[in-house]
């Protein structure tokens, strides 16, 4: 029996005058949260809009829950909850009006869950959207996406501009969502801490290209920063899979994305005195990946 991926992109291209999405391959299975990380202008929003059918790819294949997008976007969109940083609610209407509007469209709308979220997110249902704070507006948008109980959540920078408490509320809710194994979340952000907190898969995007995509534990386990003291006239040996190396006087740093004991052994054999082998945060890994990608490989 074959299982259908939640989201599958292959060879997706989109060309704009000043930006190009290049040959994007992406696969997200049900029951997972994928963090989609990239600097501003990397192509995260463009990719998500293509998945939603809001913009059409120039070439490539997009499939959501087995439905081809954009041709079968209607069938796909019944099962997608979408919230994005640049998506606004109607200022003149109340949150309650928005809830009723969504309820009139989605038979899957869950009233009890919507009311629970309203209380949990501390959003007044009878207040017009223009009277809400930024955080309340963002959370109201998420409520509308969540309460229809979609199989896939596409969240484009959902935590941008939120205070730490609101961010935690939102992230906790997302963790609850994927407790249901049939659901999946694609979550874009340039805040790596948020992504690190909730995602089990990570995809890095830069300048319209996916530069790496793996499960989070593999990412964190495979990256190391090695600090060592180099002997006089130290000649840096050839090291496989090293993304950057710096020699500053006698102190040197090597960063690698596929750490193994052979790296420290090679350095020690060349007279280096290892001072520390440190784990890296997702943010440090991301920066290393981006810099390495922009340099065209290892420094």
């Amino acid at each position, binding site marked *: 029996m074959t299982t259908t991926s939640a989201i599958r992109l292959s060879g997706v291209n989109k060309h704009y005058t000043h930006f190009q999405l290049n040959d994007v391959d992406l696969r997200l299975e049900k029951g997972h949260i994928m963090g989609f990380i990239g600097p501003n202008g990397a192509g995260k929003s463009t990719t998500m*809009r293509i998945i*939603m059918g*809001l*913009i*059409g790819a120039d070439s490539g294949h997009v499939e959501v829950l087995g439905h081809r997008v*954009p041709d079968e*976007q*209607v*069938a796909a*969109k*019944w099962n*997608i909850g*979408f919230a*994005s940083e*640049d*998506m*606004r*609610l*109607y*200022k*003149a*209407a109340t949150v309650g*009006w928005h809830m009723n*509007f969504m309820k*009139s*469209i989605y*038979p*899957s709308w869950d009233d009890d869950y919507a009311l629970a979220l309203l209380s949990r997110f501390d959003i007044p249902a009878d207040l017009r959207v223009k009277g809400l704070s930024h955080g309340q507006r963002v959370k109201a*948008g998420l409520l*509308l996406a969540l309460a229809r109980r979609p199989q896939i959540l596409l969240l484009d920078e959902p935590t941008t501009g939120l205070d730490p408490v609101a961010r935690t509320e939102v992230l906790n809710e997302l963790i609850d969502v994927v407790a249901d194994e049939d659901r999946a979340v694609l979550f874009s952000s340039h805040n790596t801490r948020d992504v690190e907190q909730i995602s089990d898969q990570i995809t890095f995007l830069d300048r319209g290209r996916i530069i790496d995509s793996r499960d989070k534990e593999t990412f964190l386990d495979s990256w190391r920063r090695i600090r060592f003291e180099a002997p006089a006239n130290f000649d840096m040996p050839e090291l496989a899979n090293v993304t950057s190396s710096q020699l500053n006087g006698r102190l040197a740093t090597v960063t690698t994305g596929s750490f193994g004991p052979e790296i420290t052994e090679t350095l020690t054999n060349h007279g280096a005195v290892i001072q520390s082998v440190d784990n890296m945060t997702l943010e440090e890994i991301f920066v290393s990946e981006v810099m390495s990608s922009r340099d065209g490989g290892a420094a």
Partner: protein
Amino acid sequence: MNTLTDVNQTRPAVIIRQLVLKDWYFVRFPMAAYLAIGIGAAILMSVPHQTAYLIGSILLLSVVVIVGIHLVFGTVTHERSQQTLPMIMSLPITFTQYSAAKLIANVGGFAIAWSVLLAVTVALILTRENLPLGLLPFAVIALTELFAAFVVILAVAMISESEAWTVVTMTILNIGISIFLNLIGSIEAIGTHMGGPTAVWNGTALLILGIEILIIVVAIAVTLAAQSRKKDFI
């Protein structure tokens, strides 16, 4: 057995109806106010005084024009500029269905206001002695021209997705109203009967009316065709 997906796929009509009701909800108060002003203007037209008639007719034409402007900006242009379009387009609809909903909301909304104003105008011409019956064809042509201009402005707003082009089209067509009315009045087959005791629906009047209706139909068809070919919606 019907799956949820099967049920969902039968719901585009429900969604289109909800989108139309949504647009009308946001313009309900100004539309009611314009309707009241329009009826007031029509009553003013019936006062047996040339100045009152002139003020009433200018006010009536202005209200119809403003209704159109408010509808197009309130439901089409602002949806894009205020970034509510991504939320709507994330609903399970195609862009053609979205466009159909916009056309129904706008043309329908305008038609309601327009029909009331047309009915009041016709009723006044038929019942008030100071208004000659010969004015009827001219009045119908003038109000239908406003309808055609509104649909063209709506089409430009939806197809171009540009506030600037919408304003340019609106300005040109609205400035053109007085020129058009003068032009129609100066046509002998129309102008000579305007002050007469009977409404003369001659070939010229019917031809002009037919062209106006054709413009409305073509503008709607072109809008739907253009929207269905678009690949990028936001």
